[in-house]
């Protein structure tokens, strides 16, 4: 009976070995994955176990932590001007997880990041309480306030960037929500959360980064840049040889012009009075490939991480000639985020150098040591300096003598482009009012802005225009930046 006994011993050994291997697999190889599991409440518990670090604007925190008497979640998140900053901070809720900066930099804010290892270790010996680090943003409180109050009760978004560096100065989205409203996990928090989820105006949608809109006329700035860059036009003052009406290539469809007197105008004039026909024809001359190339260099067709993810804007890769012409005036499939349009304005304003947009300047440890400092990075060079300056000349002309008059700031050079983007079947929906612009001083451009007003229930449909609704907001944001 001893031989089978030995085999049984081996069998028992195999059982134990299987357990040992499984334990190693689970606790060594899979541990990280399990710890990052969304369902792991330990993440939530750790997130609120100690005082959470803050998100900082203009060296003042726009977030806070308050102590609760809960066993699991000792601290609760609070917000200063929650609705205004919600598109920047995101939310951190005990019941509903977190998003945006609160989520992306959770490791720093909750103090669990490996990058805070040194601080934690010293705290262990000094007996200090664990505390999270801070996230210092690039935003400007004044610009954000101007953007948020400018939008007011209207539905829309504003993005302002510093063209020289790519720093995001304002990031507003309305209607907004107060992340403090559901920071806890009580019944009231849950109700507020559900109300926000159900709200048809989608207050939790970050319109500045996550919504893509038809860009309408402001896209013509990009088309003009592409035409100059690829040699379709050399002189912006010369007639462009555009017939009236212009028939879209390979079709019998005439391109409608809302403006009068577009026949054979110069590129400069065409941008000023926003001639569809001129840009449709130019885009056809540039060709889809080159148009696509320029659009993608400006950042189309890819997601941007600021580090909060921005939706990819669209310039269709496989279009007919006629559709390319439609796209070039911001119609057809073309769709962009407000951030993307701000990047277009910024690339032009910065003489053709497009900087990567970002909104986290640095991460700080609880002792305010800098853990990570973001350096401005060049994203691409969509157009040459010469092209950029020609486009600037045209955009400045729009503000001086065209539809962008509402954006004028005394003593400052401002370039801009208005737009009223029609959309919906047969353009039946209320149009979007667009405005992109930049301001310029002797030291280059400190600010480029994109504003979209999606809908203002109180404005009569015919009065919706980029110049009327969006340009004043852009002006106040630019002024706020210039005043500093």
């Amino acid at each position: 009976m001893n031989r089978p006994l030995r085999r049984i011993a081996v069998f028992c050994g195999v059982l134990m070995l299987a357990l040992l291997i499984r334990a190693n697999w689970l606790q060594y190889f899979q541990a990280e994955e399990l710890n990052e599991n969304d369902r792991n409440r330990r993440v939530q518990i750790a997130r609120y176990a100690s005082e959470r670090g803050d998100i900082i604007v203009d060296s003042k925190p726009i977030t806070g932590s308050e102590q609760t008497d809960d066993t699991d979640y000792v601290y609760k998140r609070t917000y200063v001007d929650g609705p205004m900053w919600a598109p920047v901070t995101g939310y951190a809720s005990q019941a509903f997880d977190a998003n945006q900066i609160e989520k992306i930099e959770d490791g720093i804010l909750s103090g669990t990041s490996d990058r805070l290892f040194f601080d934690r270790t010293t705290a262990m010996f000094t007996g200090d309480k664990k505390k999270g680090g801070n996230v210092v943003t690039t935003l400007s409180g004044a610009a954000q306030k101007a953007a948020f109050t400018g939008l007011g009760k209207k539905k829309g978004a504003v993005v302002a960037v510093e063209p020289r560096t790519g720093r995001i100065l304002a990031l507003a989205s309305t209607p907004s929500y107060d992340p403090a409203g559901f920071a806890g996990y009580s019944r009231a928090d849950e109700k507020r959360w559900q109300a926000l989820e159900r709200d048809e105006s989608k207050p939790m949608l970050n319109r500045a980064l996550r919504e893509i809109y038809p860009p309408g006329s402001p896209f013509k700035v990009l088309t003009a840049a592409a035409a100059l860059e690829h040699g379709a036009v050399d002189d912006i003052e010369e007639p462009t040889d555009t017939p009236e009406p212009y028939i879209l290539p390979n079709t019998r469809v005439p391109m409608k012009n809302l403006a009068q007197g577009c026949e054979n105008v110069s590129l400069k004039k065409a941008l000023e009075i926003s001639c569809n026909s001129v840009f449709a024809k130019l885009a056809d001359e540039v060709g889809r490939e080159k148009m696509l190339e320029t659009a993608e260099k400006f950042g189309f067709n890819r997601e941007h991480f600021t580090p909060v993810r921005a939706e990819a804007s669209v310039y269709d890769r496989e279009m007919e000639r006629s559709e390319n012409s439609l796209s070039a005036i911001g119609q057809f499939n073309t769709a962009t985020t407000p951030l993307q349009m701000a990047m277009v304005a910024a690339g032009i304003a910065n003489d053709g150098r497009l900087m990567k947009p970002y909104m986290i300047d640095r991460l700080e440890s609880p002792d305010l040591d800098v853990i990570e400092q973001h350096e401005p990075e060049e994203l691409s060079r969509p157009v040459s300096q010469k092209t950029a300056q020609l486009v600037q000349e045209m955009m400045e002309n729009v503000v001086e003598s065209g539809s962008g008059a509402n954006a004028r700031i005394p003593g400052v050079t401002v370039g801009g482009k208005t737009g009223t983007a029609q959309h919906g079947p047969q353009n039946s929906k209320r149009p979007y009012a667009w405005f992109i612009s930049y301001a310029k001083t002797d030291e280059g451009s400190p600010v480029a802005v994109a504003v979209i007003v999606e809908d203002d229930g109180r404005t009569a449909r015919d009065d919706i225009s980029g110049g009327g609704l969006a340009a004043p907001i852009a002006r106040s944001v630019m002024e706020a930046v210039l005043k500093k």
Partner: protein
Amino acid sequence: MSVVTNTTTIGAIEAPSRRNTELMMLAFSVAIPVFAYINVGLALDGKLPAGVLGYGLGLGLLAAVAHLVVRKFAKYADPLMLPLAVLLNGLGLVMIWRLDQSPRLILRAESAYGAFSADAPKQMLYSAIGVALFVAVLLIIKDHRILQRYTYISMAAALVLLTLPMFFPARYGARIWISLGPINIQPGEFAKIIIAVFFSGYLMVKRDALALASRRFLGLYLPRGRDLGPILMVWAMSILILVFETDLGTSLLFFGMFVVMLYVATERTSWIVFGLLMSAAGAVGVASFAPHVQQRVDAWLNPFSTAVFDGQSDQIGQSLMSFGAGGTLGTGWGQGNSDLIKFAANSDFILSSFGEELGLAGIMALFMVYGLIVERGVRTALAARDPFGKLLAVGLSGAFAIQVFVVAGGVMGLIPLTGMTMPFLAAGGSSVIANWALIAILIRISDTARRPAPAPAPSPDAEMTQVVRP
């Protein structure tokens, strides 16, 4: 004439009893949990826990009593088994006490049942009863072969024990409890030992018939029905009862034990094949008509799916995350969140609590302790001189190994969860008490096995044969 001058080859030199070794190891087995206890107190409150003396002395006392009884009544017993059992029992006590301090579990119990009652004092009591049973077994059963006489009584007893819970209401979804007032007994734990006695007694008698008087069929040796019949019937009945009571773990345990013992008794590998085929058929059969089995399999395959995690039970998912949170070195005793598993954190899922707070290192050490107990058990079987002892020892230690595997594999997501408890660690009376009895029987067999052979009777021819020596 003295024994030593006897010329037979079997020397009657006194074998070392190893009782002092056992005593030293026991000192460690008590000291480690006491340190662990202090550790938990410091981690939770920053000061020495109030009851450290009580629990320390209690555990020490139990160990001392058990040791003295072994020293007196099982002098040659294996020196490792008792210390290992004490160590596991002590560590379990510490973890149960630690979870008693969890504000989360206290709040939960108060809102669900209106009051919270600590489990550690109860576990201490059960451990004392367990050691008392251990002592009783060693005192009453002077030789394990006595058990052989109760082969058929054991069978009846086991069947009765297994049937009884059907007449009591289900708790936590399984009918495996007998409730007598405040006392809840899980008879399956005791049936495990009793049925091992029956298998050993029966197989010892029938093993030749089972091994040799068989017909060849499809390359397998099938025994005659009259030999196999009774055992097959008992097995089938226990499985059926258990399936009816939705106690998967125990049915798996019984089946495994049955195959192991049959294989050892008959030395025929075909039994293994036969057993595997039958278990496969049984598994498919049960899985296809028992919805709760399908649920278990589902929970095992997708522990984090919405249907499982938010629907039927988040226990497996929580358990896996506990292990993950522990990582290599653990969060430290008292500093984990294994109480997120809720009420089973100190019973079915106590291993997850260990996994989180002691980490991979602690878990591997625990498995080693269990592995050592099994190894000592199989070694006892090898050393035993009588087939009944061999069978009983291998049956009990095989069952022990299978139970550890099934429970640990279940909570670690290696196999579907079946709902048994980690021997000695988990909170719960039946398990601790029954396993102390199991260790007592193994110690008794090992004592008989390692006891020096009695001196042979002096040979009347001794003088004569000495003459022919050169």
